[in-house]
């Protein structure tokens, strides 16, 4: 479904990597590894089409993503290291607005349910700026609960989460894979994803 050929990344004067390629099918997780600064985030941003690669091509369902455009983006869910939540809005408002902007149908009940799953029951109506680091991250992750788009791209999703939340998220990713979804992920924490095929790609 998602293929990358011979990707090359140059930042400033520095060639971060070259000749990187892979092929990912439904139910598979690509686990991107590499030391700090190896180029993992850069690679992810290429995959979602925000950073044009120096060389090489990325295809989704056989079509180069530049060409696929909105069709590709309609099947993509990206979670960067920024949380993409508004500090002034409450978790509830944040998730509703995000859904509406991504053109998804999501009822208030569904959102409340998602928030409860991420352990934010009782904080639905507190502006996000008052939340702790980990709680903010949880709001961002709550988007994934009802997410049914096939391709998930996650940049260090486990950062700032406590142990219980890490387990919960690992379970959520497994369920996504079992539904036949694809995921690309980076993390420096060793977290076991119980289900799905895990492929590793090491940048160095």
């Amino acid at each position: 479904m998602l293929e990358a050929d011979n990707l090359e990344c140059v930042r400033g004067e520095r060639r971060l990597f070259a000749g990187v390629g892979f092929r990912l099918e439904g139910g598979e997780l690509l686990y991107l590894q590499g030391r700090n600064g190896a180029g993992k985030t850069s690679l992810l941003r290429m995959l979602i089409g925000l950073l044009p690669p120096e060389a090489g091509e990325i295809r989704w369902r056989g079509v180069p993503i530049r060409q696929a455009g909105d069709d590709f983006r309609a099947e993509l869910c990206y979670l960067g290291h920024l949380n993409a939540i508004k500090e002034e809005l409450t978790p509830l408002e944040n998730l509703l607005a995000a859904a509406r902007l991504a053109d998804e149908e999501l009822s208030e009940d569904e959102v409340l349910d998602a928030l409860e799953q991420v352990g934010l029951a009782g904080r639905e109506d507190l502006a996000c700026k008052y939340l702790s680091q980990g709680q903010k991250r949880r709001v961002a992750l709550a988007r994934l609960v009802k997410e049914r788009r096939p391709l998930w791209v996650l940049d260090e999703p486990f950062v700032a989460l406590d142990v219980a939340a890490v387990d919960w998220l690992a379970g959520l990713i497994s369920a996504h894979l079992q539904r036949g979804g694809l995921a690309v992920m980076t993390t420096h924490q060793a977290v076991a994803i119980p289900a799905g095929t895990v492929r590793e790609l090491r940048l160095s």
Partner: protein
Amino acid sequence: MLRIVTAVVARDLRLAMRRQADIVSALFFFIIVVSLFPLGIGPEPDLLRKLAPGVLWVAALLATMLSLPRLFADDHRDGTLEQLALAPHPLGLVVTGKVIAHWLVSGLPLAVLAPVLGLQFDLSTEALVVLTASILIGTPALSGIGGIGAALTLGLRGGGVLLSLLVLPLYIPVLIFGAGAVDATVSGLGGEAHLSLLAALTLAALGFAPWAAAAALRIALE
């Protein structure tokens, strides 16, 4: 298509309401700047009446401009902009929504307030009407053009001042026609010609600016 635009407008308006201060303070900035001039220049009514159109329009322009840096900056900083760029619809629509919301929060209140301030400068009723109309028609263009500037300077530190630098030259036609309309009315020539030119400017800006801004945003995100 319309759904996206309204969704963006609704979200931005809600954010503005939440911050409350925003709307009120843009207005007060307008009031204060307008009141500064007589202080700096002195209290002769005749002189002040001559200045009125220019001062009011420059103040409106500055008040609109001051809120521009935050048009995309907040969304950029917290990662929302990335998500908007990844949504499966043209980014230009999103920008259109943001520009409309910006105008509702920063342009519209100015038009409401302008006649009251005009009184301080002893303007005639007719001049006040034209002043209000010109601000009502002209400020959408300011928001639209400002959107391009805001997108171009996004993520550049020191963006705020750089932004003014980019945007002000483009604002000058709006200023000239806007203040010109009031001036023409005051001197009995009738401001219709100026107003229709202003309307043309605004239409052009609103049709074109969001797409230019969207392109600039994609570059800023690379």
